[in-house]
Every structure is written in C-alpha cells, then in structure tokens.
C-alpha cells in the first residue's frame, strides 16, 4: 500500500526516465527539446507533490478558522520560477534549432554532424 500511496512519485520517476530516454536516443533536434521538456516537467510534479498534504487547503487565512490544515505553498511558488526557466530554455533551444535549419537545411543531428566533419576549421 505504501508503494501505491506514493504513486505521484512513481509518475515523477517514470516521466523523468521517458524524457531522459528521448534525450539520449533521438537524433532529431526538435524531438530532443521535447524530451528535455518532459524531463523538466517531471521535476515540476516532484516539487508540487512534496508540498501537498492529504486534505490540505490553499494557505489562505480565514476569519474564525485559525486551525486549518494547509499545503505548503513554497514548493509551488518555487516551481513557478522553474517553469519560467523551462519555458526560457525551450525558447532559446527552439530559436537555435530555427537558425540551424537556416544554416544547414536540416534538423537531423546525424546529418548535421556529418556536415560539420566535412569542413575542417
């Protein structure tokens, strides 16, 4: 039961491995970025899970209800920052891919590496 109860952490590990596998195995530059996105999203789930308590409410102070069980808002706020960072990384990555497509005419990692090796520098 304990293992099943931690299912969101299993989802975190599963997504992380899926993302990591895509990063390693795919040669297409856009697919690699998608893999990176899944990889980073898994960390968001990790952070969100660790702040949540069963039955916890949003941390809002209501009059007459001082003894409220609430979820820890800090990891949720932290992960907002990490989401912004993830978006920025994706944007920079895709911008570089666009310029690679313009310069090489391809977004396949193998073809680009082959073209790189043709010209000595």
């Amino acid at each position, binding site marked *: 039961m304990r293992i099943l109860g931690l299912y969101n952490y299993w989802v975190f590990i599963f997504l992380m491995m899926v993302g990591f596998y895509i990063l390693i195995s795919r040669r297409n530059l856009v697919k690699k970025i998608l893999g990176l996105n899944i990889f980073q999203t898994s960390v968001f789930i990790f952070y969100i899970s660790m702040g949540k308590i069963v039955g916890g409410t949003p941390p809002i102070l209501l009059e007459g209800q001082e003894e409220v069980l609430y979820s820890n808002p800090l990891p949720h706020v932290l992960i907002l920052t990490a989401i912004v960072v993830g978006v920025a990384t994706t944007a*920079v990555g895709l911008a*570089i*891919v666009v310029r*690679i497509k313009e*310069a090489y005419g391809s977004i396949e990692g193998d073809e680009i590496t082959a073209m*790189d090796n043709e010209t000595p520098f």
Partner: protein
Amino acid sequence: MTEHLPVLQVVVPLLAAPVAALIRWKRGAWLLTLLTTWAVLAMAIGLLREVLDHGTVSYALGGWSAPFGIEYRVDLVSAYVLLVVAAIGAVVTPYARASVEREVDPGRVPLFYSAFLLCLTGLLGITVTGDVFNLFVFLEISSLAAYGLIAMGPDRRALHAAYKYLIMGSIGATFIVIGIGMMYVMTGSLNMVDLAERLPEISSRTESVAFAFLTVGISLKLALFPLHLWLPDAYTYAPSTATIFLASTATKVAVYMLVRFFFTIFGLTFSFETMTLHWVLTPLAILGVLSASLTAIYQQNIKRLLAYSSVAQIGYMILGISLATLTGLTAGLLHLFNHALMKAVLFMAMGAVMHQVGAVRIEAMRGLGRKMPWTMAAFVAGGLSIIGVPLTVGFISKWYLVLGAVEQGMWLVAFLVLLGSLLALVYIWKVVETAYFKEYIGDLSIREAPLSLLVPMWVLVLANVYFGVDASLTAGVANRAAEILLGLAP
C-alpha cells in the same frame, strides 16, 4: 551605500543588460558594458576588503531576514571568486570592442553585449547568494545567456555547439533542482547556513540521493571528465570574446558551487567520509588531466587545443579539492584564480590571431612569431604558465598541488600531476615551434593586432608574472578561504 554592495553587485549588470539591448548602437552598448564591468570590479574589490577587514557580510534581500527571506552572504570564498569573475569581466570588455566587431554579425552586436552582461549577472549572483534555489535561478540566467553568446559565433558550427551545450547544460541544471528539492523536503529550508545546521541531524537515504544528483549536475556544468563533451565545441566555435570570458569564469563558478555544496552545506564529514567522494573525484580528475592533455596534443585547431587544455586544468582544480586537506583545497582554489589568468591570455592571443588572420588552425600560425611578435609572445607567456614554469602563476598552483598530494603520501598522484605538465609542454611547444621556427608563407599585409587587443592581453600577462613572483596575496586569501571551508576558521 557599502551595506548594499552584495545586491548592487547583481542588480547593476542585470539592469544594464536590457538597456544595452535597447540602445541598438554598437559603440553605445559597448561603452555601457565597459562602465558596468568596471563598476562591478570596483564593488568586488570593495566587498573583498570589507570581508578581509570585518568578516562575512550578510544582506537580507528586501529586509526579510534569513532563513525566511533570501540572504546574500559574502564570505571570503565568495569574495575571492567574485573578484576573479569581476576582474576577468573588466579586462575582457576593452578587448571585446574590436574582436566582437570582427566576428559577430553587425546587427547582433548590442545583443551580444546584452547577453554578456546577463551572463556576468548570473555568475556574480551564484557567488554572492546564500540561498540554494536562488543559486539555481542565477545558474540558469548565466547558462541561457552563455548559449546565446556561443550561438553568435562566426561559423555555423557555433549553432550546433550551442545546441549541444544547451541540452547538456539543461540536464545538469535539472539534476541540481532535483537535488535542491530533496534537500528542501528533508529540512524545510533553502538557506545554505540553515541547511548546514539541519542536514547533519538527518540520516536518510534521501540525503545521499540529493548529494548524488547535485554532484552529477554540477559536474556536468563544470565539465568534469567524462562529462566534458559539450566544452570543446562550445569554446572552439564561440566568438573569441565569449570564449575568453566563459573559459575563465563559467567553469570556475561551477567549481565554486561544487565547493559550496560539498564543504559548506553537506560538510566535510558527510561528503568525504560517509559518501567517500574522493574515490570518485580523484580518479576522474587524474583521468581528465591525462586524457584531455593527450587529446589536446592532436588538435589542429588551436582554440580547440586550448579547450581540451581547459578540461585538463579543471582536472587539477578538482584533484586539489578532492584531497580535502588544507593544502589540497588551497591548491584547488588557487588554481581557480591562476587558471583564469592564464587561459584568458591564451584565448586572447588566439582572438587577436583570429582578428588579424581570420583563422586559428595550426597552419595559420606558421612564422606568425615574426608578423605578430607581441601576440605570440603573450601566447608563449600564457603557455609557460600552463606548463607551470617557475615565476608564473602556473608554478604556484602546481607547487601547492604536488605538496598537497605528497603530504597525503600520494606519490603516484604527484607524479601524474607532473606528467600532466609534461603533456602541456608538448601541446604548447607544437604552437610555439610553428610560430617561431617555420617560414612565414601567408599574406604579407598581415600586421600586429591593434592596441585595444594587445593592452588587455599584456595586462593579464603581467598579472601572470606578478602573482607568480609574489603569491602572498592570492595564496594568502586562498589559504584563508580553504580554512573557512574546512571549518578551521570562522
């Protein structure tokens, strides 16, 4: 004013960056960058003096006191790395004007300076912050700016190099966030000092896992062998200015992060006794030194040769740190400063060759010693420093490193350090021989580089010699910083 120095250090370049992008006027953006980097250097010197006189400076951001708010905490270790980053930034900017104009697309020059300032902001932020999540944010600011800087290189391969760095760097950064998240779960704190107090009370497997994630993540960022694969391409194809700046600061700041996490946060006992980190770091460092030096010997592109040499030099720093003794850690920290000086000189010389000749392959060096005497003389000086010849800074750090290894009775390690120096002699000699003992066959109109490139280069050459003759300042500060990290001094 003085009490706000820790935050101004970060805010000034952060605000200057968007302005540089908005100016859209090359000379204006450069002037702004110059003023900013010099102001940053002045502040870094001020902070170092403050720390030397009055001890650790703590700054509560927005008035929220630690551990609830974000604390900026500058101790001697931070102030020392801060000075390295700020000084290199201030010397590179005067050099940048001519070099960037030659290598970067004219429309992108203001954007280059903007990215440069952002990268500087991130690196300075990492060194001053006392909050681990804040550290991650600054790490990403500096990394994203660095990907942009590299992608602006003159060759299309710069784009591919930047892409590969982006993938590897993001994996590293994500590992670091996972580690930080696990530390937060265990302790409920993100403040470094607070974490250092709370972590020893916990003995769960989560702590080991967090430690592993952080070690791998930071090792990717600092290009520890065998996680260095992004580095040679990135340094080879980036614009020369970006290469000089990143090679002498970005990996150094990653070394600083490593030291912070291992010594300040997890503590000496946990890192080196419970986790036996030295069994991982020492072999990897030595393998890095030897394999990267050997690879460097066979390179035809001199910027790539120097990039592999950087991987080897990072090996020396990690070797010093992995000894986890006062002398070893002093050697690691000292080499952090010294390597920044020598690698900046070498890459500046190659930047000047790129500016005048337009190529940095070994064939382009033929007889260049007669055509560009000052540039090649600077290269020789930097090269002597990399090899570790007496009267240069390289000798000082090698001396401490060998001393640290011998102290521990690790004679084999000491021997391998010297072997590494011998390999450095081979790859530096390869360039020197081509430049001085081959007939010049190239274009006769090639002249010496302009003064704006030579002056910063020679300032650093003189620094290489000065700190090589009188190491009392650098070795003194590095020694005291190592004492703080090992908990021998407050």
